[in-house]
């Protein structure tokens, strides 16, 4: 590499793109910066390439958010159906049981009236039992209706918190580090999370796709596990895209570990949440 870079060298080695991707060594980067500070062609190319690159990332972010929201919406419908079915059973089974018992008692009462004219202690007993059952049935029904209303409210709150449309969801591409490479160093990934963000999207490209599915474990700096998930399948670009609630990530250092097979470490993604 020449001490003072010329434009031909920049063109020949494609330094504009390598610089924007942070793929230059420190000395190359410094030399290229010294060059483009006095090269109108390079600065023009850098601005345009950087702008285009940002645009591409914005398009990807918009598409990822759309896909995530569609996924969440789908999940909500499934959850809604499951909840609806469960609640219907919850209400229908005891009521059905009460109705069946009422019918049985009414039938017994009618039979008793038909076969034994006049006042009979058995009739009085059956009438009292039926009246008590009607009252308790009404009480149960009210209790179940209240529970149903509570469940509906809880579900609506949960959906509001997780499933509502969100805009400008922060998206970060995490770089992996080799095991032990970052010991004592500051995390290479610094995620500047806007204060009002509800969710954050983390994209990680896997170094290997030798496993059918992967497991992700997110830990705080002290090692405490914050979140984990298994059976994660990479997308067509061999990347995992994770949508996490921002409240899960207060300021601090974290380590996202991806494992494949029986605990084989595939990648380590240390990152720092800053504001």
């Amino acid at each position: 590499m020449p001490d003072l870079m010329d434009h031909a060298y920049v063109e020949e080695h494609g330094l504009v793109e390598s610089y924007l991707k942070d793929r230059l060594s420190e000395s190359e980067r410094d030399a290229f910066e010294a060059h483009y500070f006095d090269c109108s062609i390079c600065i023009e190319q850098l601005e345009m390439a950087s702008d285009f690159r940002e645009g591409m990332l914005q398009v990807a972010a918009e598409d990822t958010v759309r896909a995530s929201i569609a996924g969440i919406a789908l999940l909500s419908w499934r959850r809604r159906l499951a909840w609806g079915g469960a609640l219907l059973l919850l209400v229908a089974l005891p009521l059905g049981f009460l109705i069946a018992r009422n019918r049985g008692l009414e039938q017994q009462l009618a039979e008793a009236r038909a076969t034994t004219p006049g006042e009979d202690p058995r009739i009085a007993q059956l009438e009292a039992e039926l009246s008590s059952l009607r009252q308790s049935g009404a009480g149960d029904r009210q209790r179940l209706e209240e529970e149903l209303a509570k469940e509906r409210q809880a579900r609506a709150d949960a959906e509001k918190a997780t499933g509502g449309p969100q805009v400008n969801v922060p998206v970060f591409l995490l770089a992996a580090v080799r095991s032990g490479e970052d010991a004592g160093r500051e995390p290479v990934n610094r995620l500047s999370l806007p204060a009002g963000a509800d969710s954050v999207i983390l994209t990680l490209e896997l170094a290997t796709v030798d496993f059918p599915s992967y497991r992700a474990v997110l830990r705080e700096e002290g090692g405490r596990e914050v979140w984990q998930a298994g059976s994660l399948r990479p997308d067509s670009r061999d990347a995992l895209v994770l949508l996490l609630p921002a409240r899960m990530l207060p300021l601090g250092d974290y380590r996202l570990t991806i494992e494949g097979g029986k605990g084989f470490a595939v990648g380590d993604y240390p990152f720092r949440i800053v504001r």
Partner: protein
Amino acid sequence: MQTSAELMSDLVRRIVAGDPAAETELVQRFSRATSFLLRRLTRNDAAAEDLYQETFRLVIEKVRGGELREAERLPGFVSSLARNLFLGSTRRDVRRRERHEDSEAAESAPDPAPGQLAGLLARERAATVRQVLAELKNDRDREILTRFYIADQDKDAICRDLQLSDLHFNRVLFRARQRYKELYERRKDA
């Protein structure tokens, strides 16, 4: 016609001699690149603007004081000073947080959230990129751009996977960026 080295020597000599026009010329000459570098490093327009002012204040002070010994290295001197100022400000932020002065740091730190204008520009940029992508002739060209820019894959790896020549790869990138530039300039003019 003067070479770049001669231009730099002349500029430095005039600044040392106390010529204010030379100082203005220096700022004009390196303004665009300094601004680009600082925006790239800080990812925050307000922070970049602060460091931009500080960079030129220090550059002029040091050049006036004769601290730049090789005048032809003036561009590198400006770029490294801008970078060092950024690193210094980052270290200060880290130290402040370590001293549990978060509330004070938060008050003085620029808001990292993108403003409305930045958001609007980002959406316009994305719309322009979408137009470029829609105009591409085939899916493979779209895949090249996606793998290169979004998945951040190496050019060599993409060429190997898709059995492309360097030339084809460069052509796709060049054409996409050219088209983006045309659309961008049209949008700017409008």
